């Protein structure tokens, strides 16, 4: 599926929930199914700074696309990570670098987009794009 299609899918999914309670319950559900990071990556090196909860993120390049895995000690954060992984994992570096993330606004999670240090969504997206950039540069240099 293209990234746009996945985003559309997520938007549709969330559109079934009228209120915050159901949206968050859904997010919590999603938090349970996050592609878990290998325990050996749950170290300082893979920690994303600037989150109130701890988030570990790992990325690997496979057949021209990037595969992300992650974990967090907070469940809502895990849910958000899962959303991002659904969108970004399996995409090419270029797609990720140019990705528009306005779908987060549309599913009513805009509050997590604020440029603060209190939540990690922006940091996570930044880190994912940085990984993409790094892989792109690396393959260009090969």
């Amino acid at each position, binding site marked *: 599926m293209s990234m746009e299609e996945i985003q559309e899918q997520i938007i549709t999914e969330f559109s079934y929930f009228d209120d*915050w*309670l159901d949206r*968050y*319950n859904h997010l*919590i559900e999603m938090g349970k199914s996050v592609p878990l990071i290998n325990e050996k990556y749950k170290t300082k090196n893979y920690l994303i700074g600037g989150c*109130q*909860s*701890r988030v570990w993120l790992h990325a690997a390049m496979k057949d021209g696309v990037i595969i992300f895995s992650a974990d967090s*000690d*907070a*469940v*809502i*954060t895990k849910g958000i990570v899962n959303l991002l992984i659904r969108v970004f994992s399996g995409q090419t570096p270029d797609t990720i670098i140019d990705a528009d993330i306005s779908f987060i606004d549309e599913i009513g999670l805009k509050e997590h987009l604020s440029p603060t240090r*209190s*939540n990690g969504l922006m940091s996570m997206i930044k880190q994912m794009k940085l990984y993409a950039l790094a892989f792109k540069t690396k393959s260009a240099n090969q």
Partner: protein
Amino acid sequence: MTFDINKIRSDFPILQRKIYDKPLIYLDNAATTQKPQIVIDRITDYYTYENANIHRGVHYLSQIDTTAFENAREYIARFINAPKKEEVIFTKGTTESINLVAASFGRKILNKDDEVLVTAMEHHSNLVPWQMLCYEKEARLKVIPYSDKGEINLSTYQMMLGDKTKIVALPHISNTLGSINPVKEMIRMAHEKNIPVLIDGAQALSHLKVDIADLDCDFYCCSGHKAYGPMGVGILYGKTEHLNFMDPYQTGGEMVEHVTLYETSFNEIPFKFEAGTPNVEAVLGMEAALHYVEETGLDEITAHEKNLLVYGTKKLQQIKGVQIYGKAAEKAGILSFLIDDIHSFDAGTIIDKFGIAIRTGHHCAQPVMNKFGIPGTVRASFAMYNTREEIDKLVEAILQVKKMFG
């Protein structure tokens, strides 16, 4: 004086607003308090009718502002019962006040192998400046321990006060555990060995009576914004002998007496420590805030917040799985807790949806979190305008959290 909670609530305009269509329940008072209308009006009036730069101006506005500013100093000095008004220095906040003392006093008296005493329950603002100073001076930072309840053991403390101890820095009230520390007694013990004591009073001002003369502390630091006043102003109280002994901290502007290109002599206290254009607006706003507190009745406020603490503690303890951190016998209206093993960020995110403002995380006191082996807590902290009904709503929110993450 009767404590009329409805009147008080109507004096704080922000309490009329809604968050997610629910009335705002503001329980993040240890981070910053809300402002009564008269504080907002004081600021508006200041900029609408009076604004000018003060000191040395001969024109009318500058003169009335200077008078207002120095009168505010006098009033604030009286509010905290400071022996002399020149001993009250305006800073931008508690953090700056402590940094000023560390730089201008600590740096001057501390030598290699000397010791600085702090507690293990400090806010970073009363910890990191001393760490840095000790690092620079190759001095030792010694940490006064406290019990799991959040109480400092006085005899351990007394034993730690040694020949090498050059300064003691203590929080009047812990911003995480709520403990009201026995600072008067601790100051007395330190003074027996001629050791000066700095009190971090960020959580005390406007919550309980701060009586500098009675405490006899050497330094007292607090912030306007945590005491119903505006942001950008704080107090450093210092004993005259110390302030005169200290070098200036920042230099420039009105704090100098005489300047040539190569030499400068400094003004007397308090001006010596007030470099640059002072924040007149915020000082006048802080005066208005303390006035409001005085008129409302500080004793009544203290009693009201204590009531809320007792009620809130009882209610929270009735919820299975809630663990409260900080159980000192003497405790202010600060309630830190965790629900089952739910992450504070998860809990806070849901509680927020009820229109309830609480704080989550380490509250700038990471060593406290380390002691209890937790990444953070949820913290509800009370002010004069809070009510039992608001605590009931918090309980509802907590039950919802349990349901969602249970």
